[in-house]
């Protein structure tokens, strides 16, 4: 079992943070990599980015949004309990190097957890890193302090204007793209529409952009092809060749469609889970 050492509810309980004991994974994880975890015998294999790692303590941190049955089940796990299976680190690490211009890391919603280690990585490499993070409203914002520490400059936005800049992350991004300082690289993670708009915008400005894709996965080792995405007209496997790809090449519409493959069944699973919880089958 992979034990949960710390647990925190964020964004009004819609986002959960777990610090998990996994020394082997923590020892080799690099920014941009993810793990696949499974809660119990009947559970699903769910990919989650490592939002942080502590090789000394032998721990990894995951931050996930509760969206369906599996993440709801994860949420029910308390400190001292744990996940039956955890494997990683999976995927290609972010290529971190020193750029002469700005590196802008854009995180939307839980995507902020995904860009956190990447932001940190670029800063440690000596880059000037701008973090732009956003959420629907103030209460849903996560990791503001962590992102402030991980970057050299931070901008916060909320869709409803309840905190920071009133508007989308793309609005703020635009001010940088139009500004005087050179922008060398943009890294974006978040909802697919957000990544799509970020990529569209940076393409106009000719700024290289990496997006971290969240395709549906099973094995995470390149064995099943379930995580395939079209990048530049070629089929690529997100789990082994990604999760980051050139945002200007990704077919986001196809990704959106593929993510809806199990919508009906996901609903059914969630309803059953809620029902079982109410009658006390699950704790």
């Amino acid at each position: 079992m992979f034990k949960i050492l710390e647990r925190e509810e964020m964004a009004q309980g819609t986002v959960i943070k777990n610090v998990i004991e996994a020394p082997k994974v923590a020892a080799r994880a690099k920014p941009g990599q993810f793990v696949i975890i499974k809660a119990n015998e009947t559970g699903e294999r769910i990919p989650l980015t490592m939002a942080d790692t502590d090789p000394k303590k032998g721990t990894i941190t995951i931050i996930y949004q509760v969206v369906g049955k599996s993440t709801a089940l994860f949420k029910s796990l308390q400190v001292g309990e744990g996940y039956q299976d955890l494997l990683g680190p999976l995927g290609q690490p972010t290529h971190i190097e020193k750029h002469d211009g700005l590196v802008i890391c854009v995180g939307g919603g839980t995507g902020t957890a995904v860009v956190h280690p990447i932001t940190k990585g670029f800063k440690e490499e000596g880059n000037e890193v701008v973090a732009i993070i956003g959420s629907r409203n103030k209460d849903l914002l996560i990791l503001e302090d962590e992102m402030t520490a991980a970057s050299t400059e931070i901008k916060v936005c909320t869709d409803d204007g309840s905190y920071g800049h009133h508007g989308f992350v793309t609005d703020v991004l635009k001010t940088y793209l139009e500004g005087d300082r050179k922008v060398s690289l943009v890294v974006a993670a978040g909802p697919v529409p957000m990544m799509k708009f970020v990529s569209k915008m940076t393409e106009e400005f000719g700024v290289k952009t990496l997006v971290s894709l969240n395709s549906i996965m099973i094995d995470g080792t390149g064995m099943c092809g379930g995580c395939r995405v079209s990048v530049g007209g070629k089929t690529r496997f997100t789990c082994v060749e990604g999760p980051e790809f050139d945002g200007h090449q990704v077919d986001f519409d196809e990704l959106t469609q593929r993510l809806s493959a199990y919508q009906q069944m996901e609903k059914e699973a969630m309803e059953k889970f809620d029902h079982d919880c109410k009658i006390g089958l699950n704790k």
Partner: protein
Amino acid sequence: MAEKKEKTPRQAMPEQDPQVRRNNFDEVPLGYSPETAQLEASRCLQCKKPSCVSGCPVEIDIPGFIGLIKEGDYSGSIAKLKEMTALPAVCGRVCPQEVQCETLCVLGKKGEPVAIGRLERFAADMAREKGDQTLPAAAPKTGKKVAVVGSGPAGVTVAGDLILKGHDVTIFEAFHKAGGVLVYGIPEFRLPKAIVQDEMDGLAKLGVVFELNQVVGRTVSVDELLEEYDAVFISVGAGLPSFLGIPGENLIGIYSANEYLTRSNLMKAYLFPEYDTPIVRGKNVCVLGAGNVAMDSARTALRLGADRVRIVYRRSREEMPARAEEIHHGEEEGVEFYLLTNPVTFIGDENGRVKSMECLKMELGEPDDSGRRRPIPIEGSNFELETDLVVIAVGAGANPLITSTTPGLEVNKWGYILAEEETGKTRKPRVWAGGDIVTGQATVILAMGAGRIAANSMHQYLTWGW
């Protein structure tokens, strides 16, 4: 003609009725009763120089274990089997006996060979039902340590052999369950997963350590394993799905056989929502390809509630590579064959779900390199075939994850690891390899044979240093 009177015929094995079994995931053949098994065992001539044994890649003492069944000594029989194989219950079920041991049985020259596979299955099942824990005796500990990468048939054979020779063995497996294709590929109705687990438990009892959820090349590298272990055996299988590379292939409802079968078998999606992993349940299913993997996919689709399942294949019936028995089973259950047909485009609906495929009719031309007649498209024969679920089962390739992260490991032009046939040695010192990652997708017993060869070579190295 004036031969002896009619002898005992080869004993049939009862099966679930096709109309019943196409709706459940229970095993299809039901196994021999003790009486039938003894009757079948009595057919074996107990040859002094048994030709059957040379047809078995792991050289099971066939007359030996069969003779013990005949005497009713089932416990002795399983002990005899376990001397040579770590997976008797598996091989008895999925070995292509008709091209292995049974094809060389002397009885087969004039009549029907002894049902070696069925008897092997019987002995293993009896032992399991009775909770017979007979373990082969292990040699004293040598203090040497071996790492095995991948827990399929090749890997577990090496593990079983070397632990019995006194070495410490640890298996590193990427998945959360051990068994390789036996757990994620071959369906429950052909090979119940409880049986595979039982054989894995047997290895654990012998002292083999299973390290699950370890992706070698990611969690740990082969070079790091070499620091801690005296020798490494690589048996990661042929785990790369093949796609057709035609338009529309990423539509929803188009799976690689690997994904389809892994969802159903390993993740138990057929038990959704008791199990959390979902699977697209098609009503009108097309399976592309005509090998064993295609048959398994087609039969799985039936059990997942399809009204109609078609095997779509670009050659004719004669060229279908699946075992005759599998084709027969599928046909009995209602799988249809749609031959000399090749898809060129997948067509989706407004939600990105597959709704049909545009296909071309084919005709057969001259034989190609494989000796089979080459399929040639008939121009202008395009037509549309409706479908709501497509499973692509046109072969597998070498997964580059481990080979690309292991310097010094040489591969051929298709990415398979180069290993000496007589020893399993790779070009990298202290590293052996075998099974599908060397040969390309083959069979359980060939992978086990490769494991046996490598285990012998590794034992020599561990004992003498060469």
